[in-house]
């Protein structure tokens, strides 16, 4: 419910990410089949990556132990913005599952950073 709210808002602003060359990836422990059907159902057009076993999620230390519906380890909501070199330029680790990153936040952060580097 909350995740869809966030993903949906990014989908609505996808054109603005595309024109800036910002590539979006959604990552969770969902198997590829779940991502595929969910993505189709909700009309999301950016890629969904499947981290079954949560190896990458652990690597980024965004694991939420036992928070799945059957006590599985899942990802906590978190966002990382990387520059062209793969360096993290902005991140958001919410303390409240209901308070999520907003697309405008990421876009303005990107614009600010790139305005600085270009000039």
């Amino acid at each position, binding site marked *: *419910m909350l*995740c869809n*709210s*966030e*993903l949906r*808002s990014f989908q609505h602003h996808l054109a603005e990410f595309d024109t*800036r*060359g*910002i*590539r*979006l*990836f*959604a*990552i*969770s*422990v*969902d198997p*590829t089949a*779940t*991502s595929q059907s*969910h*993505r189709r159902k909700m009309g999301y057009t950016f*890629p*969904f*990556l*499947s*981290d079954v076993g949560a190896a*990458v999620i652990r690597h*980024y*230390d*965004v*694991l*939420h*132990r036992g*928070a*799945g519906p059957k006590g599985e380890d*899942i*990802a*906590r*909501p*978190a*966002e*990382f*913005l*990387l*520059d*062209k*070199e*793969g360096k*993290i330029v902005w*991140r958001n680790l919410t303390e*409240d*599952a*209901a*308070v*999520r990153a*907003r697309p405008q936040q*990421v876009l303005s952060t*990107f614009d600010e950073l*790139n305005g600085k580097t270009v000039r």
Partner: protein
Amino acid sequence: MKRGWNWSLWFGFLTVIVALFSYQFFVLFPITRDFPWANLLLFAGGGILLAIGLFRAFGRPAVYRGKIFGPILTVLSLLMFGLFAYGLFYIARQMPPSLGAPAVGQAAPDFTLPDQDSKTVALHDVLRLSDTHAVLLIFYRGFW
């Protein structure tokens, strides 16, 4: 004298039900999601109606009904509000500290994962594409 229908008890109870379940709708908009003020207003409205109903049932029992179902509806309403508040103000705030998450200025750990079509996506390959100026990773809980 036939006692009158205590409508404010029922409308209050109905408002509380709407307050609980309408978060599914209000969650879609960041302004009513980040803080559920729309739902809290509905709960408050329901509470006021229930209070009026109880006041009538017990204050003027000769005119209004509801001495038995009034308290029952009120307890059910309090349970629904408790459930809502527990979920949104307690459970939702139990986030792990993620102290080891890569910080601003650090290199993002590389990864290779399958996408929804089981096609392999490697972060270093995506970064190398000429039209990639930035990458946004959105970790989400999942739909299982």
